[in-house]
């Protein structure tokens, strides 16, 4: 489904990703862990198509496409979804209108008919239950005045409505209390299937207690330095990233103390 080969990415002349290799297949959940500044979020952003990144080398294949050639909206229509670390507030744009417009764009791309307002409402009400969200949120502007937890739940709601094939969760656990974390993770777990895949970017092991990954990768200084199963996350939890940093050869200068953001 997703094949990343030797991907190198820079920002403002500085190389952030220094040769990433990763394969994701349908039905899999991959966790990408690492200390702050290791490039985890950059990877998620680049896959979703945010501008401002310079592709220095390598390639990304996704469902037969050269992913990096596609506009962000085309990636979304092809089934890629990024749950933002910092969901954007857009005053004046009604959440229902936004969700319906997005869904109909995705459906049109798949050759499916547009959903009527009534059918859409039926669908979205069912999805709201998944993330235990109050329907009043639908009548508000996108994320405007939402609490941190509400914003993250809104991300999962959008994911549930759009039903992506490949979901990228960028630090979805950051800023969540344990109840919100449980709700968000519960939503994700209900969406898991044999046909879709998840890439979960996180700093902490905490989220992975709820969303159990098939693979765990440790990203450090722009490279995946270790891969393993879920036990790797537990190991990191116990030992921290110091050992990784040590073995990565570039120690504390980069990231001293950053693990406690």
């Amino acid at each position, binding site marked *: 489904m997703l094949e990343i080969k030797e991907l190198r990415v820079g920002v403002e002349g500085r190389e952030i990703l220094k040769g990433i290799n990763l394969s994701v297949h349908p039905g899999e959940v991959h966790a990408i862990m690492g200390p702050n500044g290791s490039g985890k979020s950059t990877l998620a952003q680049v896959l979703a198509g945010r501008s401002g990144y310079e592709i220095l080398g390598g390639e990304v294949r996704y469902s037969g496409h050269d992913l990096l050639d596609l506009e962000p*909206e085309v990636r979304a229509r092809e089934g890629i979804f990024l749950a933002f670390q910092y969901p954007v507030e857009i005053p004046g744009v009604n959440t229902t209108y936004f969700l319906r417009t997005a869904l109909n764009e995705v459906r049109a791309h798949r050759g499916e008919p547009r959903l009527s307002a009534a059918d859409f409402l039926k669908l979205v009400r069912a999805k709201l239950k998944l993330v235990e969200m109050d329907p009043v949120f639908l009548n508000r502007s996108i994320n405007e005045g939402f609490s941190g937890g509400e914003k993250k739940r809104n991300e999962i709601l959008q994911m549930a409505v*759009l039903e992506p094939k490949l979901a990228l969760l960028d630090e979805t656990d950051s800023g969540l209390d344990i109840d919100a974390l449980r709700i968000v993770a519960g939503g994700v777990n209900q969406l898991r299937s044999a046909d879709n895949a998840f890439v979960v970017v996180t700093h902490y092991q905490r989220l992975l207690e709820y969303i159990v990954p098939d693979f765990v990768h440790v990203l450090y200084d722009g490279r995946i330095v270790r891969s393993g199963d879920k036990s790797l996350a537990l190991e990191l939890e116990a030992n921290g990233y110091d050992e990784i940093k040590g073995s990565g050869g570039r120690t504390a200068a980069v990231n001293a103390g950053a693990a406690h953001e």
Partner: protein
Amino acid sequence: MNESKQAAWLEMHQEALRTAPPAGPDFLEQLRAQAQARFRERGFPTLRQERWRFTDVSPVAETAWRRAADCAERADLPLPELSVDPTAYRLVFINGRFSQTHSRLPGPEVSFSVQRLSMLSNGVKELAAKRMTETAVRTEQPFALLNSALADEGVIIFIPDRMAVLVPLEIHHYIDAAEAVVHPRVVMILGEQAEALLIESYSGRGGERYFANPMADVVVGNGSRLDHYIVQRESAAAYHLSSTRTTLGREARYHRFALDFGGRLVRHDLEVELEGDGAEASLSGLYMPAGRQHIDHHTTLRHLQPHTFSRQLYKGVLQDKAHSVFNGRIFVAREAQRTDAIQHNRNLLLSDDAQADSQPQLEIFADDVRCTHGGTIGQLDLEGLFYLRSRGIGGDMARQIMVHAFAGQVTGGIGLAPVRELAEALVAERLGREE
């Protein structure tokens, strides 16, 4: 510039008015003379004057405009849909002349007055004379003086005490004559505890070059309320230089929305006098110039009594090489304690070549007041755009959604549904043209 040459057309028009058969009320001649004298002292404004430094009206001064009255009467003209609110009472003027065919006047059973300046009844005539003369003596707005100096037709509306007129009153000016000038005048007087809705609408045949010089004179009496809408859809080559003077009594409320989509060069001078304790003015504007359109709002709020309240929200969406100007002057007199005045001007530039100039001007002589202003000039939020696109919404549509949301803060506040719907349609039309 040779000044006598510059105002040659003005002399000519004054002469024409002097020799024309006396059509208007008896006070008109004196009013014109007073205004002419004051206008002549000042002349046309130039870029050297502080309040005109962004807006060059020399093409207006230098064009030999034809009097609209000299243009052929076109009462039978197949007009585009002019009406803003189909349920409204409507006075339609074509090339400055009243068109019975296109108008819809209230019947004789109503006890408020909607009259033309050229045929005033006693009673209303005295009210109009008093207000118009006062304005001609007091106003510092050059184009208000020009309007008075050359006034020959207008609409005088009087709403008596304790009367609420819930049907909107719509005045439409349509121009299809090249190089013509009109000086539309409306005088709107509300007694005490009265209510009304006024729509001024301006349009013209596409591409025609003409000069519209409207003036609105508004009095909102104690405890009364007026909702005032201006829908400006002039031709893309037109000059539209308007003036408004509004006086508010005790606890009077004045809500105004100005929508600007047309015109080559547009200037609104708005002066609001909050003369009564507790008077309230809420002023909004949305302008969306494209091409080389130039749209300028100059507002002056005079808080003259305690507990007066004003809100201003002017928003602009600029494309291509458009230019907008906003100057908001808030004057708070020493006795106007507890004044509460907030002013915002926000501009969205959709092109690198567009330019917005925004300046507040606070003159505060009372010490217990709340006065704030905020001005922003920016581009579309890239984070927001990416967010929408990352959900499958195409780039063009995402931009349109963002602009609609920006404009929606003004259009969403429009109380009268037909005006609000028209505003939203005009926003969509203007954005559609972008691609």
